[in-house]
């Protein structure tokens, strides 16, 4: 019987001990996230939870009994503690990093399946509350599984060979990882709206979870057998970096989920841009801190690897931001600060494809500045960074311009289509030189052809020091750089007008006056003309 039923059905004075407990629970949950309360209620009643919980207990009990019956000597005299812990840990890991995230994923999908999502979205709950409530519910379920396995781990701890620090470390990692994976699962569930896509999404999610279970379990067992160097500062430094990275990606997944649930006239973009930028700057800070801590400067070789990671980050971030609809809702325009300077600072962070491209260009500018202002140990590195940045700008800029043009042709062309277009375009230009070479008389020639220029994967390796590298003083290198710079500039020029409009939409205060003067078109792009 629910607490509410009791509290409503009977006066407090007449309530028995159970009822008083229910009333107390009702009051305790009063300030809690409503989704958490609902989800926990539903989860604890659900067959999935009960079956998983019972299975966890039964399997753990069978393992304990089996160990006691079949290996009594190992239990008494051997080092069975660690082995037994690892078995319990495996059972727990399956529950908290597969079942719990999958439950969170299904929970969000079922809101759409059951037509309850719309009712949630018109309540006073914010999208963030909805997402956090689902995540907290997943955490509560993980807690329950942890508490169920605790007596068995306590039993293992009494045996020889049990390593307490290692066990605590693994349990903490599993819990943290469970939160990350649950958040990621929630984010994926917000991406699917149509029933067919939801089904595919669920299947994909299940296989992803099984894959990550395999990877995670492998890593955990590696830790347990090889040991963890708790006394090595480098280990803690690395662990700190991993925790920060995982935390930042969990936050990013949360922000994406929140954006997906945000009303169309709300701000779906700034939060994601802030987190993506923060990740970049945190990464840079970590590299600098690491070099300072180790007392070493970052070599060009290290810089190349780091740049590849950064380029990948900004290629995805740029494709996401630059393909948004160039439209700032009245609601967001009303929320802009009155101070003109603040408005200028707001420009790259506000929603809109052109502003998104500008946001990316500013960060690419920062990468270029780092490449040319710092003193590197080789001559080729700055030009290599320049070429990489040119490719990023060219692909993103061209994708943004094409997306804008296609949106004019058909209003049903969505940002997701634009992102897919950039990916397809990148793949197409990457394989084109390979096809041309395959059709030529000398397909395995090591000579650089100008057709190779269209593919970043064929050009960039030539700009790094190596056997097939184009020397720094080779005129061909300059020609390549000039061509790439020209392509990047052209891509920016193709978006120049949109960028200008995007800036003036935020900076100009005339739009504020027109907002109050009367009604304006809210979504001019989708007019039937």
């Amino acid at each position: 019987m629910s607490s509410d039923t009791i509290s409503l059905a009977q006066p407090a004075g007449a309530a028995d001990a159970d009822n008083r407990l229910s009333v107390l629970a009702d009051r305790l949950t009063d300030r809690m996230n409503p989704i958490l309360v609902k989800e926990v209620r539903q989860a604890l009643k659900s067959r999935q939870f009960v079956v998983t919980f019972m299975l966890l207990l039964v399997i753990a009990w069978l393992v304990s009994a089996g160990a006691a019956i079949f290996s009594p000597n190992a239990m008494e005299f051997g080092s069975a503690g660690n082995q037994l812990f690892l078995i319990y840990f495996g059972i727990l890991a399956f529950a908290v990093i597969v079942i719990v995230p999958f439950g969170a994923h299904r929970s969000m999908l079922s809101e759409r399946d059951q037509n309850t999502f719309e009712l949630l979205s018109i309540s006073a709950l914010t999208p963030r509350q909805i997402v956090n409530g689902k995540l907290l519910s997943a955490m509560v379920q993980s807690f329950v599984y942890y508490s169920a396995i605790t007596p068995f781990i306590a039993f293992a701890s009494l045996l020889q060979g049990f390593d307490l620090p290692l066990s605590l470390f693994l349990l903490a990692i599993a819990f943290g990882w469970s939160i990350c994976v649950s958040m990621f699962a929630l984010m994926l569930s917000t991406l699917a709206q149509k029933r067919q896509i939801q089904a595919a999404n669920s299947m994909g999610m299940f296989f992803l979870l099984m894959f990550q279970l395999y990877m995670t379990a492998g890593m955990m067992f590696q830790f347990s057998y090889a040991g963890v160097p708790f006394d090595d500062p480098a280990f803690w430094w690395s662990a700190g970096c991993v925790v920060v990275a995982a935390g930042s990606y969990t936050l990013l997944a949360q922000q994406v989920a929140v954006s997906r649930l945000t009303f169309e006239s709300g701000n779906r973009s700034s939060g994601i841009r802030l987190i993506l930028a923060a990740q970049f700057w945190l990464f840079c800070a970590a590299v600098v801190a690491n070099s300072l801590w180790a007392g070493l400067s970052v070599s060009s070789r290290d810089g190349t690897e780091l740049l590849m990671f950064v380029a990948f980050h900004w290629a995805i971030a740029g494709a996401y931001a630059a393909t948004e609809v160039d439209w700032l809702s009245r609601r967001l325009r009303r929320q802009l600060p009155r101070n003109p300077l603040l408005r200028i600072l707001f420009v790259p962070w506000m929603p809109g494809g052109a502003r998104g491209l500008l946001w990316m260009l500013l960060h690419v500018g920062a990468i270029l500045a780092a490449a040319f202002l710092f003193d590197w140990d080789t001559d080729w590195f700055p030009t290599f960074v320049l070429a990489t940045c040119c490719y990023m700008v060219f692909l993103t800029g061209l994708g943004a311009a094409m997306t804008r043009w296609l949106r004019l042709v058909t209003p049903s062309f969505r940002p997701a289509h634009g992102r897919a277009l950039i990916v397809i375009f990148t793949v197409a230009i990457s394989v084109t030189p390979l096809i041309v070479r395959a059709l030529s008389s000398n397909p395995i020639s090591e000579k650089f052809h100008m057709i190779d220029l269209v593919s970043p994967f064929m050009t960039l390796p030539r700009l790094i020091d190596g056997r097939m590298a184009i020397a720094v003083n080779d005129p061909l290198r300059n020609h390549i750089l000039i061509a790439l710079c020209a392509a990047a500039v052209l891509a920016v020029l193709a978006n120049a007008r949109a960028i200008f409009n995007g800036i003036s939409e935020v900076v100009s205060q005339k739009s504020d006056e027109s907002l109050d003067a009367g009604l304006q078109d809210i979504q001019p792009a989708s007019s039937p003309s």
Partner: protein
Amino acid sequence: MSESEQPGVKSVCENGDAPATPPRGEATLELRHLHRFFGRLKAVDDVSFKAYAGQVMGFIGPNGAGKTTSMRILATLDLPTAGDAFICGDSVVDYPDRVRKYLGFMPDSFGRYGDMNVVEFLDFYARAYGLRGDRRRDAIEHVLVFTELRKLAEKPIKTLSKGMSQRLGLGRCLIHDPQVMVLDEPAAGLDPRARVELRELIRLLATEMNKTVLISSHILTELSEICDSAAIIEAGRILAHGTIEEIQQQQRRAVGRQSSRSLLLRLARGRDDATTTDRLEKWLLEQPFVGHVQMAAGKAAFELEGDDKAQTELLQRLLSAGFAIAEFHSKSHSLEDAFMNITQGITQ
């Protein structure tokens, strides 16, 4: 733009914690030049109307006319292409968070958490609308009493009948005591008794609780019994709106019979033979301000240009002419008649 529409200005329904009754005369619900296009399809095309506190407004139109789209915009579930809608003076585009506090929306098909019982369901939505402690418990109790779901409080939702589910849906809309209720086809699929009971509840919302109710339905006879006013929409455009009487007048004006009334008369049995019926038709056609005469076995239907006095005089003349009149009354124009006359059956 009125003051109440400016940011930061206290809204019509705002009064501390509890939604209050706005002053009579201020619209609590307004659609202003609302447009919603889906590609080339004009789902809602320049729709404007207002509704006031204590009023039940019918939103009538054939399937695909734009009712649900308009209602979804009002409920902040969709965004207009142009124009705006206001609930208690707050724009649904600019201030959806505020609007949601004043609005209770019941979609035509809404989801229920089947594994919850009635009170858990209401408790969840009370929490979702930010109700805490005794306010939450009181709100649930009030809704259970109002919707007469008290006895079913602990029953799982999946076991409720359609009628009870609709009551629960109405209860969910009411849980935060909104000033404006938007109900999309609430009586669809209900049996006659459940329909009558739901109709009574909706009527009470306006009369007892002074709420503004915008309701769409295909069952026009029912709407005419509970609605003070109506807006008729077809192919995304509003064809008529106002009180039922105003709509009928608009319609008469449109066909050029502004002051005409439809009258019905029946001759007494035994004195309604064919000869008398023919004589009556001829006599009626000779009378001034009488037209559109239609005869059928001792009965006549016709239009009279004039007021009550003209109608009385005509009756006196009929009796003087020796006709044995058993019935003589004006034909009431139903909402259904108005709807059929105004709409053209256009589908998009």
